[in-house]
Structure formats: C-alpha cells, structure tokens
C-alpha cells in the first residue's frame, strides 16, 4: 500500500466524491443547528453528532482497514479531527460528505503507517495471474458459480489497495482520478486495481472456473 497521504489530504479537503455516492446517500441529513452548536464547542451537540455518525463512520472505517480495532481507532481519530476542524467546515458540501472524507483520510493514514511497519502479504502475483487467466480464457472464465465465501468476508480478504479502491470507487463514488491522487498513482493504476479487486472477488466467490470461450 503506497498511498500518498499528503496528496490524499489535499484531495480529501476538496469536497465530496464526484461519482454516484451509494452509501453516503443512505445517511440522514444532520441538523444545521446541531452543527452550529458543535462548532461553538457544546459538548452535548458533539456527542449528538458522534451518535449520529458513529455507525456509518465505523462501517466505512471497517471496510477500509484490516481489523475492528483499527476501525475503532479510525472512528476516534475521525471525531477528534472533526472537533479540531469543525470551525473550518464552511458548509459548501454536506456535513456527511465532509465527515466521510475525514474518515477515509484517517483510514488511509492508518493503512500507510501499518504498511511502513509491516507490509501486507503481497498478493499481487496471485492477482496478476487471476487477471491474466481472465484475459486468456475470455468471458466464460467469469461465469457465476456457487458462492464459496460471503461477500463481506471476501472483501475483507482483498489486499489493502484493492479493497480500498473497490470500496472508494464502487460504493463511495470516488472517480479514478480522485483515487489516483489519493494513492499518488495514475488513473490507470486505479482502474487496474479495481479490475484486480473484482477478479479476486470473483475468484473467492466463484471458485469453479469454466473453460475458455469458444
């Protein structure tokens, strides 16, 4: 995982993801008065905001990070950042979008710290093989089969980069350009990682690959 967090922070401050935001739209809007009270340092308002966003932020963190413990850390770091920076929230975008950006940023920072200490198991060769097999065998190789693994478990087993890219792109609605900026890579890198993530998911969910397309 080689995410460029300085660039990530820049991107994350820029606004909401440009794509279709599936998960974010499920969240209820938060009362502007509550945000204003929290800005003024009202502890009850801060707790109300925390209670409002606790589950969605934790869920997002849990999808991006490796363990539930990591996700709890991200949840705490996110709200500390929210308290520290809420005065600078101008209300240009939605509060929900802003807080999700902060959470994603914190999760990426945690992954980066972990990568620098203990790199994840390198599955790139395995993934490359899977993609190569798909390209060689054509579309029949991706035919559906009985699911071996639950989708959530399969997602958790993806390498960090692939998991982050598929979640940010397919669920949070980030564009490849935005993800590329966050990762310090190119849009092609993001597209490649998205394809790898889907290939790996398919491999885990549909183990019985059929023969080549004729």
């Amino acid at each position, binding site marked *: 995982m080689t995410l460029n967090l300085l660039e990530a922070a820049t991107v994350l401050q820029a606004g909401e993801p440009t*794509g279709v935001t*599936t*998960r974010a739209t499920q969240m209820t809007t938060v009362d502007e008065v509550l945000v204003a009270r929290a800005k003024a340092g009202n*502890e009850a308002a*801060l*707790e109300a905001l*925390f*209670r409002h966003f*606790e*589950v*969605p932020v*934790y*869920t997002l963190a*849990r*999808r991006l990070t490796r363990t*539930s413990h990591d*996700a*709890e850390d991200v*949840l*705490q770091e996110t*709200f*500390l950042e929210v*308290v520290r920076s809420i005065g600078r929230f101008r209300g240009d975008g939605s509060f929900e979008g802003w807080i999700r950006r902060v959470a994603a940023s914190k999760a990426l920072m945690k992954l980066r710290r972990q990568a620098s200490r203990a790199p994840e198991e390198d599955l790139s060769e395995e993934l490359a093989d899977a*993609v190569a097999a*798909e*390209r060689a065998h*054509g*579309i*029949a190789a*991706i035919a*559906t089969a009985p699911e071996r693994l639950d*989708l*959530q478990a399969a*997602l958790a087993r993806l390498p960090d980069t692939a998991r982050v890219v*598929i*979640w940010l792109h*397919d*669920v949070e609605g980030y564009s*490849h350009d935005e993800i590329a900026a966050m990762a310090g890579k190119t849009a092609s890198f993001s*597209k*490649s990682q*998205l*394809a790898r993530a*889907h*290939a790996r*998911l398919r491999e885990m969910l549909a183990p019985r690959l059929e023969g080549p*397309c004729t």
Partner: protein
Amino acid sequence: MHLSLEDLLAVRDGDATVDAVAHAESCPQCGAEIERLRAIQGRLAALPEQRPADDIWPSLRAELTARVQRRRWALAGWAAACVAAAFTLVIAVRGGLESWHEAQLVRETKVLVAASQQLEQRLRTHGGAGRVVNGRTADTIVQLEDRIAVVDAQLGRVGPERAQSQDVLELWQERVRLLDALVSVQTTRTAYVGL
C-alpha cells in the same frame, strides 16, 4: 474477442470507448457480465452496517477534556512564568534589601515560585491524555483549576511596589497548595487506571 475486465468495468461506469460500448450492446455474454458487475456493486453497497463493539464516546470525551486542559495549562503556565519573571526583575532592580524581614520574604517567595513551576511541570507530565475521568474527579479538577486561575489573576494585579509583600507570599503559598492538590488528583487517577 470479448471485452477485458477493465473494459467491462469502464462500460458499467460510463467511461468506455465507443467501440467497447458497441461491443457490449451487441454481445450477450459481455452484457451479462456487465450486469453481474453492477450486481456486485449493488451488493457491496447493501452490505450491512457495522457497529463498534465498545462505546468509545467516554474515552473520546476524556481525550477532548484532556486537550482542553492541556491548552489551559499551557496558557496558565505562560501567565505564571510572566508573573514570576516580573517578580524576579523587580527584586533584581531593587538591589539591596532594607531589612532582614524583606530578605526573608523574597527567599520564601522564590522557593514558592520554584515549587509552583515544578508542580506545573508534573501536571504537564500527568496530563491524563485519553484517560477516563469520572464525574466527581472531573468536578474536583475543574474547581481546583478555577481557584488557581483566581490566584493567578490576583498575582497578575500585583504592582512592583508590593512584589515582596506578605500578601504576595500568601498568594504564592495558596497557588502551591492548590497545584499540589491538583497533582495529587491527577497522580491518583493515573495510578488508578494503571498507566
């Protein structure tokens, strides 16, 4: 030749080339695969929300409180240092003291200023970042801090002519006593949580 997975995803996301889109529209297998990719996307978005195992609000609130305290102590420490510096300056300027009593006052006050600074250093060390504070302890801490702030305000109003008076000595004694109590509360809390 069918579309690659990257091309299929590009068609799904509306980013594909005209040729890729045309192929997808004419190829039932690629069309079906794109639908499958859409279904996976939908299933990912529909995964159930997850809830943290523990309620982290208490520790979060304690950390926020600790941050406020650290800021207050940074300010209080700076103010006290200014008062002490002014006091020392006055003594230095005045030079020779007129009586043994005045000299004694100065010595005692100097000792108290030094003790006060040491206690503040200990408070910064035992600031309690991220540790849980019960309501009674938090109330005690706030009361002690408020009383120290009152003493600091009184010391701040002391003019050069009263720099080595009995009143000032008593104010420093009160400040040291309150700081000592605050250190005791913080140290006990730290020992209690095993940190």
